[in-house]
């Protein structure tokens, strides 16, 4: 038995060397989320779904607020709608050593769930995906994340990343590089409108998710200043949102007043920006929107 154990431990030790090296090759090209689970705990975060993941740039905000180090901890509508999983993940990610600043991006879909019973937590989609199943949110390399959530063979971690479409920056911002000629944008927008039309039929406002948004804001307030933002979207997607949740702004304004948190609705400026697919800001527009948010926060601070 002794011989067996020594040989097994020796073998596993030898195997661990290339495996750890392999996992350490994972980077911002690995997938749109990985680095967010390897970065250290954060004092100031951008919270939300893919709209804010792509649409709010910490590099822009950090120029305006050198004393604050913003980190984009937004995922997607499937991973981080407001609910218990995202709340837990934020609690794990936060660095409570000093007060920070938080931008909470809101949209009607992040407080909605399945139409049959939108308040049934067991049917919340995010439970089984990366945000729901990753307990260690600051481990580098994050072996647990890679084992549970990486959908390709690990050989892909070693591949050249020529002409990448998705790059997750060290500050958590997801940069998308796609062809922006009108034909391509139209095609992607059409597809997005189709998927949101379907979502419109299958989803409903969730009281439970709304409560979690409230809880998250309360939690973040204990750790710093909180700002609520609704990001701009194309007019096509806006039309669907208006029908899906006509009173969304009223709800957000009510929450903002109750919590004493400033709320900025950027959808009246939808026409000013460009979108990759009608739903996500293109990187240049993301820069402009981030500047606009920074100005607003500055003003709010002065007031």
């Amino acid at each position, binding site marked *: *038995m002794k*011989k067996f154990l020594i040989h097994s431990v020796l*073998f596993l030790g030898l195997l661990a060397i*290339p*495996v750890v090296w392999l996992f350490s090759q994972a980077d911002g090209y690995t997938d749109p989320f990985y680095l967010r689970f390897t970065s250290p705990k954060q004092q100031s975060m951008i919270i939300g779904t893919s709209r804010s993941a792509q649409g709010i740039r910490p590099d822009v905000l950090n120029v305006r607020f050198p004393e604050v180090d913003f980190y984009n901890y937004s995922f997607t509508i499937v991973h981080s709608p407001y609910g218990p999983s995202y709340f837990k993940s934020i609690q794990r990610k936060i660095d409570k050593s000093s007060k920070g600043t938080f931008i909470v991006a809101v949209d009607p879909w992040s407080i909605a769930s399945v139409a049959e019973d939108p308040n049934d937590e067991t049917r919340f989609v995010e439970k089984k995906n990366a945000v729901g199943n990753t307990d260690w949110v600051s481990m580098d390399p994050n072996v647990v994340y890679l084992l*549970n959530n990486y959908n*390709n*063979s*690990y050989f892909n971690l070693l591949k050249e990343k020529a002409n990448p479409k998705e790059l997750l920056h060290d500050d958590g911002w997801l940069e998308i590089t796609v062809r922006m000629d009108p034909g391509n944008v139209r095609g992607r927008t059409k597809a997005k409108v189709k998927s949101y039309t379907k979502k419109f039929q299958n989803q409903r406002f969730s009281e439970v998710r709304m409560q979690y948004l409230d809880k998250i804001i309360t939690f973040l307030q204990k750790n710093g200043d909180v700002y609520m933002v609704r990001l701009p979207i194309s007019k096509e997607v806006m039309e669907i949102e208006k029908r899906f949740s006509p009173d969304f702004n009223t709800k957000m304004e009510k929450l903002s007043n109750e919590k004493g948190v400033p709320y900025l609705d950027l959808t009246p400026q939808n026409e000013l920006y460009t979108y990759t697919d009608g739903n996500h800001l293109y990187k240049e527009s993301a820069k402009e929107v981030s500047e606009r948010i920074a100005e607003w926060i500055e003003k709010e601070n002065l007031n």
Partner: protein
Amino acid sequence: MLFNSIEFALFLPVVFFLYWFAVNRSLKVQNLLLLGASYFFYGWWDWRFLGLIVFSSFVDFFVGLLLNKEENPWKRKLWLWISISVNIGFLGFFKYYNFFAESFSEAFTLLGAPIEASRLSIVLPVGISFYTFQTLSYSIDVYRRKLEPTKDIISFFAFVSFFPQLVAGPIERATNLLPQFYKKRSFDYDKATDGLRQILWGLVKKVVIADNCAPLVNQIFENADTTSASNLLLGAVLFSFQIYGDFSGYSDIAIGTSRLFGFNLKKNFAYPYFSRDIAEFWRRWHISLSTWFRDYVYIPLGGSKGKQWVRIRNVFIIFLVSGFWHGANWTFLVWGLLNALYFLPVFIRKKNRAHLDVVAQGRWFPTISETFQMLITYALTVLAWIFFRADSVTDAFVYIKRMTNSSLFSIPTITYTKHLFWISVMLLVFLFFEWMGRDKEFAIEGLVKKWPMPLRYAFYLCLSMIIVLFGAKSQEFIYFQF
């Protein structure tokens, strides 16, 4: 809990250490640990179905004792039928209820008297077909007085639920496995390292071969009505490797894991794609099921004795039942029927035991005639696998029909071309190892044993890294659904 999961990678060493270090002084406690570990392993999927295994085990344990005590043949038969009814009853209810309800409904609709079939929303308990057959073999063997019933309830329950082979076999006989629970087991270095080697090879088969074939197979079968004939042929060939890698990989891991605990399980696969006729294929594919049906269905029906038509009938029964065992779908019945038809010419000519040895034993290469025989047998098998994989018999016929047009000679054009290239390379290397080790328990068993230790370690590390690097996202084992 999947063998190819992190949970199992943690579970196995914990049970191993407890087994050999914490409770190694008492055989009873070791068995109790195995029983607890097995229930934990099974309950990881759905603890509610544990009740079924416990109930089945109780019934067969007490039926065994009663069968032994009872001398009256009628009463003995009654006890046996109680065991059969309970076991087959559960299996029938969970696995076949909806199939029969729908089939009756369709049949009545065809006859012009449509009836509404009430479908039940039931989940098939994982592995029910496997442990049901295992526990049934115990009752039958005790009834036949081939086996003394056990009075050791812990051993019996552990035998029924032994975690390495609980959910997808090999289907063990009580005569082989149960006595191993009575004997003191001591750690055997060679046996344990052999077990680890077999686990490693099983993981290669499952994670590298089967799981990498799966996305291509799915893509081709899902688009069978639009894709080219050469793609369809490719899909069928890849499926043959997927199902082999998946199932024989599971068996290897199960047998290897058992060895770590000092148990010997039956061999379940013996390089079936190197068979020279269909009879040989069936002696080499899912051996534990084939021999189960042989011993408990075929031979009681008369086997190969009696008139020709009776023998032929028995062959058809055995293949149809075997097909139906796999699933409640007409596709499996047609798959069984097709295999019976393949088997028939060999059987009638009494050539079904013509190839009992290993092909090209002692030689590197097969003869031209052996190569031809293997290719024909493989081609027949691939054709039958189409029915096994298709969602319906109609889909399978459409698949085969579309496979026989001129585009059969075109170059396959599928989305994952690069993926296909790598799979082809991996399959060739895999086949090379399988061929080289075809007379061994598992392909790499004899290959590396005599190598110096550093070289051996390097080989195992290479295989492990191949699993890590090229292993596809872990997927359930196909045979779990049976």
